[in-house]
């Protein structure tokens, strides 16, 4: 018996809508992505992976921007920290926020956040987020805020979160956390890399042979939610690979292979040049998740392969945002290897 059934219902409804967001939570994401799959989840992944392997075997041409990025990545210096060093990333992003008045009326706004993240295998990782600006979502929201006396907006507030060291990097590329040695040992061939990220077809067959009725029911449920297992797999593969770009130290050859693997995902399209949140131009690709109603755009520096920006847009109702609204707009400002929790100014991504 619950004390607050309305909240339970809301949570369950949200869980139903946002089931995929465990793999792709909103920014800043780096420290939040560790996944632990149950047998059921492994079976589901295995099953859908079987489908994608077939798709990969069919193959298709690598989009030009990704081919350029893959080539450029090979010539970039390796940003791979030792286990007692930090991989530092600074991002600037906007996201919807809100506040409520005493009467319960909601005032919608968009806040701009700068997030610094120091990730280490052997030392405590830290993520620090500062609200640097806040804009009301509409003139009506601003007017309502003024009508209620214009309460202080807390711009400048800082939040910190630390994560104890676990000896691994929070790299979610299909199999959860990896040690430095495991990351360094990832294949440099895109198709081989895919093969490392997903179970082999013989393993899938073996798992499915022993799948319980409940696991099979979960597979059927996924199929119905995504329209097909192919759709689910494309989405899962896109998220796994792009999350590695966003937050993870990788050797150049592996990073290059990630671009190649990304180009193999059905539905990834080049849209030419675009600008990120802070105005930098780069090659843009998009992936549209029609079933969840979210369009994700990634913008890469064509010269260095670096991920400059990421933009998620709601393209349908039902994801908790108004249709056409920006869910998130994120720019990667800087990245570096550091020996302590200091902010370097390398301008590497400029």
């Amino acid at each position, binding site marked *: *018996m*619950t*004390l*607050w059934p*309305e*909240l*339970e219902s*809301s*949570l*369950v*409804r*949200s*869980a*139903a*809508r*946002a*089931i995929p*967001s*465990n793999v792709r*939570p*909103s920014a800043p994401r780096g*420290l*939040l*992505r*560790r*996944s*632990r*799959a*149950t047998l*059921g*989840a492994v079976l*589901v992944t295995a099953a859908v992976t079987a489908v994608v392997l077939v798709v990969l075997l069919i193959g298709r041409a690598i989009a030009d921007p990704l081919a350029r990025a893959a080539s450029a990545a090979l010539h970039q210096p390796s940003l791979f920290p030792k286990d007692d060093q930090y991989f530092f990333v600074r991002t600037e992003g906007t*996201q*919807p*926020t*809100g*506040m*409520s008045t005493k009467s*319960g009326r*909601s005032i919608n706004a968009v806040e701009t956040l700068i997030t610094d993240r120091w990730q280490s295998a052997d030392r405590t990782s*830290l993520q620090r987020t500062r609200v640097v600006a806040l804009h009301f979502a509409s003139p009506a929201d601003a007017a309502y805020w003024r009508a209620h006396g214009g*309460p*202080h907006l*807390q711009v400048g*507030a800082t*939040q*910190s*979160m*630390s*994560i*104890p060291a676990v000896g691994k990097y929070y790299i979610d590329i299909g199999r959860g956390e990896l040690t430095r040695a495991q990351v360094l040992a990832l294949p440099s061939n895109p198709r081989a890399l895919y093969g490392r990220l997903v179970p082999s077809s013989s393993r899938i067959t073996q798992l499915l042979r022993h799948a319980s009725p409940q696991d099979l029911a*979960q597979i059927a*449920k*996924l199929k119905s939610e995504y329209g097909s297992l192919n759709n689910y797999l494309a989405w899962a593969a896109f998220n796994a690979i792009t999350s590695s770009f966003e937050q993870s130290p990788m050797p150049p050859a592996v990073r290059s292979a990630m671009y190649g693997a990304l180009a193999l995902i059905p539905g990834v399209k080049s849209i030419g040049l675009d600008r990120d949140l802070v105005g930098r131009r780069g090659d843009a690709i998009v992936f549209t998740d029609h079933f969840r109603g979210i369009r994700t755009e990634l913008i890469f520096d064509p010269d260095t392969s670096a991920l400059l920006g990421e933009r998620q847009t709601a393209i349908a109702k039902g*994801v*908790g*945002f108004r249709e056409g609204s920006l*869910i998130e707009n994120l720019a990667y400002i800087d990245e570096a290897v550091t020996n302590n929790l200091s902010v370097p100014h390398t301008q590497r991504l400029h």
Partner: protein
Amino acid sequence: MSAWEERPDAELLAGADLDPLAFGAFYRRHERPVLAFVGRLAGNTTLAADVLAETFAAAFEMRARFDPARGEARLWLFGIARNVLGSSLRRGRVEASARERLGIERLTLSRSQTSLFDEVIAADGPSAVEEWLAALPADQREAVRLRVLEERPYASIAHDLECSQATIRQRVSRGLAALRAQMGENA
């Protein structure tokens, strides 16, 4: 009731990736202790309800981070709740970003629900906090309770426990550090 009711917390959180009812079961299991914990710290039922909602929304978003090897789900939730409350106090409004990202509307309590919440906080609040503190050695537990929960001055605590203020400060500091480490977060 769902088929998830008897499953361990880690399975409920992992299962939420596939079946939303798993998270419903997780909420039902921990709603009351988390409310009691938050209510005891917040000292305000309306605020406690808001923090409760945000805590479970944040827990849903962070479910992949839960590691049963590092502590029970209840302590993990206490850590999230404490962070939400601290963040809300710093920002001057109840943190709602997780709910907004998940598209959860702002809910209000009916009069009868408010009374029910009051009863739970009054009845279970102290024990929920005791549970939170239970992981600490006795000397640190007492120091944290007196300083953080009862907000007594160091001098007064030192007098009652017959030791120096420096010792009390050290116990509080170590106790809070241990709790933060256990909860996997820093306030």
